[in-house]
C-alpha cells in the first residue's frame, strides 16, 4: 500500500459495480442468474452488460462454492466472506476488497431494469451522503439492491451486521441515505417465482412493432447548455449514433458538427456507425479541453 496514492477525503470516490449473483434461488427452484428473458442471453450477462456501462469496473458477487460455475466464471468475481447473511455479505466483501470505491449494487433478478433508471440514479448520487437509493414504488421504503453505497458506509454496515441485523433495507432506512423517486416505476420489480418469471418473460418476448429503441442521451458542457437538459430518454428509430445526432439536431440548437464530436455508448468510445441497441446510453463528446 505504501506505494499507492493515499485516498483523499475530498475526492469523489470512483464508482464500481457489484452484481449480486450469490442467491440460492430457493423460490424459483432453479438458478435465477441463468434465466433468460426475451432471447438467449442469461439474465446475469444482461445485467452485467448494463451495469458495466455505468461504472469504472464491474464485478459479480458470488459464494465461494459458486466461483467455478461456468456462467459465473466468465466475469470478475468478489467472493462472499460471511456466510448466510444475504446481500450484505457481498457488499461487505466488495467494500473490504476496494475500500476506496463507492459501489453501485444491483440484484441480478431485475429483468425490467433499464439504462435510464441506472443513469438517473448516478445523476442523483450525492457522494457526501452514506448512500443514494430509490424509494420503492410499492411501499416507499429504500430499494437496497439498486443503490449506491459510498466508502463512508462501510463502517456503519459492518456495525449493522455485528449487531445481528442482516436486512439491507433497514440499514439504508437507518443511515444517511438520499432517497429519490424512480423515473420508471416497476423497473425494479424483482422476479422470485416461476409464475413471475413466466409473466415477465412473455411480456419481454413480445415482438416490437417497429425498429424503435429506448435510448438515453446524456449531455455535457456546450451540448448540455444547448439541449437545456443533462439527460433525456427517447424512443428512436435511429440505427446509429450518426442518425441519432441528426435526429436530435432537429430538436436542439446544436452548433457543433458531428465531425468534431466523438461518441460513447454505455461509457466506452464507439464509432459513429456502431449499431444502437435497446437501452443504450449515448454520449456525444464535444472537443475536449482537460489539463
Amino acid at each position, binding site marked *: 500500500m505504501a506505494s499507492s496514492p493515499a485516498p483523499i477525503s475530498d475526492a469523489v470516490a470512483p464508482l464500481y459495480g457489484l452484481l449480486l449473483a450469490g442467491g440460492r434461488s430457493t423460490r424459483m427452484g432453479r438458478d435465477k442468474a441463468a434465466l433468460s428473458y426475451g432471447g438467449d442471453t442469461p439474465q446475469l450477462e444482461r445485467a452485467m452488460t448494463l451495469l458495466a456501462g455505468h461504472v469504472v469496473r464491474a464485478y459479480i458477487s458470488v459464494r465461494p462454492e459458486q466461483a467455478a460455475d461456468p456462467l459465473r466464471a466468465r466475469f470478475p468475481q468478489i467472493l462472499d466472506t460471511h456466510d448466510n447473511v444475504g446481500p450484505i455479505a457481498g457488499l461487505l466483501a466488495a467494500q473490504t476488497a476496494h475500500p*476506496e470505491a463507492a459501489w453501485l449494487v444491483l440484484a441480478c433478478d431485475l429483468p425490467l431494469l433499464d439504462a435510464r433508471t441506472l443513469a438517473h440514479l448516478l445523476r442523483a448520487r450525492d457522494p457526501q451522503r452514506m448512500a443514494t437509493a430509490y424509494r420503492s414504488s410499492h411501499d416507499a421504503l429504500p430499494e437496497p439492491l439498486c443503490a449506491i453505497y459510498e466508502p463512508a458506509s462501510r463502517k456503519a454496515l459492518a456495525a449493522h451486521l455485528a449487531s445481528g441485523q442482516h436486512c439491507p433495507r433497514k440499514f439504508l432506512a437507518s443511515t444517511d441515505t438520499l432517497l429519490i423517486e424512480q423515473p420508471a416505476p416497476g423497473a425494479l420489480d424483482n422476479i422470485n417465482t416461476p409464475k413471475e418469471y413466466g409473466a415477465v418473460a412473455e411480456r419481454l418476448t413480445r415482438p416490437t412493432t417497429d425498429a424503435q429503441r429506448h435510448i438515453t442521451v446524456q449531455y455535457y458542457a456546450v451540448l448540455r447548455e444547448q439541449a437545456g437538459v443533462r439527460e433525456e430518454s427517447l424512443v428512436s428509430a435511429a440505427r446509429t449514433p450518426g442518425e441519432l445526432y441528426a435526429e436530435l439536431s432537429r430538436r436542439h440548437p446544436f452548433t457543433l458538427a458531428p465531425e468534431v464530436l466523438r461518441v460513447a455508448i454505455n461509457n466506452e468510445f464507439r464509432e459513429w456507425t456502431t449499431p444502437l441497441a435497446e437501452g443504450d446510453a449515448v454520449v456525444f463528446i464535444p472537443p475536449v479541453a*482537460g489539463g
Partner: protein
Amino acid sequence: MSTFRFTRTAIETRALAAALANPACGGYACFEGWVRDTNDGQRVRQLEYEAFEALAVREGERIVAEAMSRFGVAHAACVHRLGDLAVGELAVWVGVSAPHRAEAFGACRYIIDEVKHRLPIWKKEHYLNGDSGWVNCERCAPGASAAHAHRHP
C-alpha cells in the same frame, strides 16, 4: 488502487507525492497545471471544469497504465479538478516516481499530453469582460472555419 481521480476541492500535492515515494526510486517528476489569467488574448477571471466521469476515469486509468508499461515505471498517478477554479489554482497534477529521472520525466510528459487530448473533460472560461465560452467548442460550427484558429486533437 485508482491511479486517476477527480476532485472538487483543492489538490493536496504533498500527500500525493509522498504516496509515490519508494526506496527503489531515486527520481520523482511531477507536472502541475495552473489556471492562467489569459487565453487567446482574453483576460480570464474564472474557470469551470466538467467531465464525463465514468468514461474519463476509465480512460485516465488506461493512460497511466500505458505510461507505466511504456516507460517501465511502477508508480504514477494523476488527479484532475472539477467545478469552479480561480486564476492561480491547481487544475491538474501528475506525479511519477522511478529509479532514474529520464523515465520519470518521460512518463509524466506522456500522461499529461494524453490526458489533455483523450479525456472527456471540458473547460468553460469566464472572462473579465463578462463573456464566457467552452474552450475548443465555440467556433466549431459548420461554416465558422474562418474564425477557427485552433487545431483539434
